[in-house]
């Protein structure tokens, strides 16, 4: 649906426009004129990264319901056409994702098919690292791709919180940048530093802060570990105040599911509505590793996903931020084409991903992976995941993707040109 959308014209044309726009704005800071790329960056825009952790079964999410090979590979797990919402000929979306289907019909949801990378790694942790670092050979401490964006001066400007994780669980590499991990918020009521009983509480909070400041960076016997802890303590105190302020201003009134994902997306909506100065939010939904008895478990996960994302989007629209937000929902890999003997599926390769937003060019993108040409019983990807990242970087956040990804990737045209 997006045929001849050539990169060269897009990008060059855009930069020219951006420069022109910048020249007409007298109040822009001086560095904006130093380099075109700097002037072009859009820290006001927001990316919400939704990690469907565990490996979502792409074939049972965007279902090729009339493909005989699909029906043969999934004797007990297949989804019949009757229970699907139509996307295209022979392709249906799970009815649990009805809120997303409405966005699809409104042209605000892009589904990129067959996303993956060469020589797929079937380890959750390695593959997650690959997606998070946007490198096929991630090293132990390479920062995440979105953290690399957040580290740039346009985004990490004074006092901004460019990157934030909503919800509990471990902090992923994606949001660990050169200055340590991004803040993580689970519940707003946990943000206030504990001071104990009221008498002298303020003094103790001040003292805690002073102690975190007082430890000298180099002189300490704790070395690097202590320096890290001290930085983390100071940053936490500062960030907690900012986040709490934004949360008190924002409202999230949608109908979120009780699952942890609901709470996390509600918080993200509240912070976006409250005007927190953030460019990227990271949210995770666990549980997609459906090796056994997948049918019910997967349906419940998709229902939570559809309901939470639908409610989130309603809140974002209500807050008037819809044209500033794009959601990217992806999984580290899809699942094996053939189901196993446990009525589940083992780790696989390529899978579809979702991009949602007012600025999104809705519809189906990329070629569907072929069920008759498997490698190692797994689907072969048709779109490199870094082409989606390139689209978000070049066309949405408007920073140079080649520099951030270390390689040139042709963006998948999922983002509508802004002007």
């Amino acid at each position, binding site marked *: 649906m997006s045929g001849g959308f050539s990169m060269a014209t897009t990008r060059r044309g855009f930069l020219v426009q951006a420069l022109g726009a910048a020249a007409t704005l007298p109040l822009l800071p001086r560095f904006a004129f130093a380099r075109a790329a700097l002037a072009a960056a859009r820290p006001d825009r927001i990316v919400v990264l939704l990690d469907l952790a565990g490996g979502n079964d792409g074939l049972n999410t965007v279902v090729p319901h009339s493909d005989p090979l699909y029906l043969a590979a999934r004797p007990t797990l297949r989804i019949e056409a009757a229970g699907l919402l139509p996307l295209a000929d022979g392709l249906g979306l799970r009815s649990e994702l009805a809120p997303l289907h409405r966005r699809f019909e409104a042209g605000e949801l892009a589904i990129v098919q067959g996303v993956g990378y060469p020589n797929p790694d079937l380890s959750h942790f390695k593959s997650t690292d690959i997606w998070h670092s946007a490198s096929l050979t991630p090293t132990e401490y390479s920062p995440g791709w979105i953290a690399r964006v957040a580290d740039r001066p346009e985004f990490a400007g004074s006092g901004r919180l460019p990157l934030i994780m909503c919800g509990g669980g471990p902090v992923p590499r994606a949001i660990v940048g050169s200055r340590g991990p991004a803040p993580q918020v689970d519940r707003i009521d946990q943000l206030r530093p504990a001071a104990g009983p009221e008498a002298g509480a303020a*003094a*103790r909070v001040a*003292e805690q802060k002073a102690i975190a400041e*007082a430890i000298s960076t180099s002189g300490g016997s704790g070395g690097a570990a202590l320096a890290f*802890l001290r930085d983390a303590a100071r940053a*936490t105190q500062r960030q907690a105040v900012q986040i709490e302020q934004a949360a008190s201003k924002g409202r999230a009134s949608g109908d979120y599911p009780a699952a942890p994902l609901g709470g996390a997306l509600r918080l993200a909506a509240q912070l976006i509505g409250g005007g927190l100065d953030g460019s990227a939010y990271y949210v995770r939904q666990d549980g997609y590793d459906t*090796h056994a008895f997948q049918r019910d478990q997967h349906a419940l996960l998709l229902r939570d996903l559809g309901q939470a994302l639908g409610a989130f989007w309603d809140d974002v629209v209500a807050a008037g931020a819809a044209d500033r937000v794009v959601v990217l929902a992806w999984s580290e890999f899809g699942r094996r084409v053939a189901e*196993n003997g446990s009525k589940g599926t083992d780790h696989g390769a390529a899978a579809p991903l979702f991009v949602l937003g007012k600025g999104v060019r809705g519809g189906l993108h990329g070629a569907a992976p072929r069920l008759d040409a498997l490698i190692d019983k797994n689907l072969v990807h048709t779109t490199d995941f870094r082409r989606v990242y390139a689209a978000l970087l070049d066309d949405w956040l408007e920073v140079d993707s080649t520099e951030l990804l270390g390689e040139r990737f042709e963006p998948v045209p999922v983002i509508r040109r802004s002007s």
Partner: protein
Amino acid sequence: MLRPRRGDGSAAVATAAGDAAHQRDATRLGRLLVGPRRALQRGGRSRLRRSEDRFRRALRRQEPSRRSAAGARPAVLVRAGATVVRRHRAASGSPLSGRGAGLAHEARSGRDRRRVRERRARRDRAGQLRRRREAEDEDALPALHRRPPRRSRAGRTRRARGGRRRRSRRAERRALLRPGRRLADRGFESRAVDSVDRRTARAAPRSGARRVRPRGCTHVHRGRWRRRRAVGRGGSCRVHQQRRAERRQDAGSGGVRDRRSARPAGTARSRSAHDAPRTRRTPRRAFALPDRAAEARRDAARGRSVNLAPYVVGRDGAFGPAQAAYLLRRAGFGATPAEREQAVRGGLEATVAAQFTLDEGRLATQFAASGVQVAEQCSGAEKLGEELPPLQGAWLGRMVATRAPLAEKLALFWHGHFATSIDKVQLGVAMWQQYELLRAQGGGRFATLVDAVARDPAMLHWLDGNSNEKTAPNENFARELFELFTLGIGHYSEHDIREAARCFTGWHLKAGRYWRNERAHDPGRKRVLGRDGLEDGTEVVAVAVEQPACASFVAGKLLRAFVTDSPDAAAIEEVAGALREEQLDIGATLRRLFASRLFFAPPHRRARIGGPVEWAVGLLRRVGGRAKWSALGGALAEMGQSLFQPPNVKGWDGGRAWISSRTLLARGRFAAEFAYGGGFVVAVDWERIAGDAIAGDGGALVATLADVLLDGQIEASTRARLVAFADSADGGSGAERAMRVAQLLVSAPEALLQ
């Protein structure tokens, strides 16, 4: 054996009253779900029946397909229930009656062991020589409960030729599948066989022993050698031949003809008495004290590292309060000043030795009993929110009360390694049973441990072994076995995973116990990790554990857990080398590690960020504190470590990953609760902790509290600020002032360094 006790010495912090309070806590925890009258009650018939019913109901919920099996085999259920009760009895203090008592077996056999040893020594010339050798070797380590056996060459060979090794693999498998025994029980037994001196091993139950390789032979014995029972005889094994040739070369023309050890000469291992080069033909030469300096020079010349060179007090540094505090922080949860002093008095070797005990004390046993009770009630997702906190509380209470902290720390370490979550398993009994398995076998052979975990009911639920069928194998367990449990990524192929998954087909559960379902098992031959002809999962475990990558993988994890967050490659290889020499015996390796130069290297002293559980348990132990145990687990979950509920199968990443703004704020809340008492910590008696310093100047108060809470390890700038605060009007006075200072101390960044 030195055994730090609460209530010793002048600065003791836990009083008899405190112990009584702990005891009440354990009882209450048990009552939470069971009802007051039955708390800590010994098992009766009606109780047994109720427990069975619960078990059966739980099984029905879990395994709809096996409902008929569960209903049709009440006898099996009675046995399962009876085992729970037996464990409960054992745990609640009836002496040495239960299998769950772990080391009970050893304790009971102590006298027998001594008698047998004496008899053998009289008969056996090598025994006499050995005693002489022991007397000569000043550096001989004292006997530990997991001490490798010392015995004559002749006896070894006799056993190697006959006895249990003679049984064919098929018979071995049959023994494994003997009905009526639970996996964990078998695990305990095979541990007992492992740990009881092998002179008595012939009297021990044979079915538990599955070892196919002799000690001292660290390379892979492939099928042919094993079938011929040529292993250990020296002549038939090419690797042995080669190594012996190497040793002869090392020792010169008249060299020591060591026929028993495949270990390279001159490794640090040879310092302990039982392991020095020894032969029957040239006793004088063999029993001479090894010249360590010469060995080290020779090793260095050949480019070989000396694995885990021992820390020699005097030459390498002191063993004072700072070193003792460090050792007790890493091997346990930190020590009170009194325990520290006692360790210094006892010396390095005795302190290290004292860590290797499972003798936990009565209080901890009571917490364990309450854990068993609570676990029986836990079943099903609906009430997980109510059931998990008391289960966590029982373990946390045990950690705080135990006199054997290393056993708990190892259980915690393995819980993060074989990370299994109640979220999917949903059976408290299975989770608790897995924890007891990890605790009992955590210091034993890694191979035995992995094999036991592979059959553990919680694991069979967690990684879907229970539904792994030959028609279309489920790869979940096979993949994580290689990736996360034994080898690490990059040391296996996708083909290995698929083949290994076939080997584990049919490893199912029946009435809550491991059972090999022959109808679901793929009997074909498989090729895994370059080895042909494998059939069953137990062989896959054996092959995986023999891979060179396994020792390095485990070594890295041990170093991260016990020494430093960022071990360098050289340190990992050193520990991996020691592990290989010890045949992946975790306890023996840790004993060497804790007494090594590597361990005491100054950069490691504060190179670890403590995880929430060890941090909170450590603080509570230091002040003899108590908690509302059922609420403590939730507080720890906010700090990022929910027991029985790791975030995924990789467990907790640890190190810097412990720290996020969310977890830091949660630790701050804990610091406030800890200092003032309230939500989940019962108020600490700061006047008693601070002693005379309570009325002293700020400097004295800060010094005393920092000594108790942080082993005195605070930065000068922090200390200055705290002293100024304590002396200011904001500081308050009396116990109030001590609380405020304690809160600030515990929430300071350096308090998170372990």
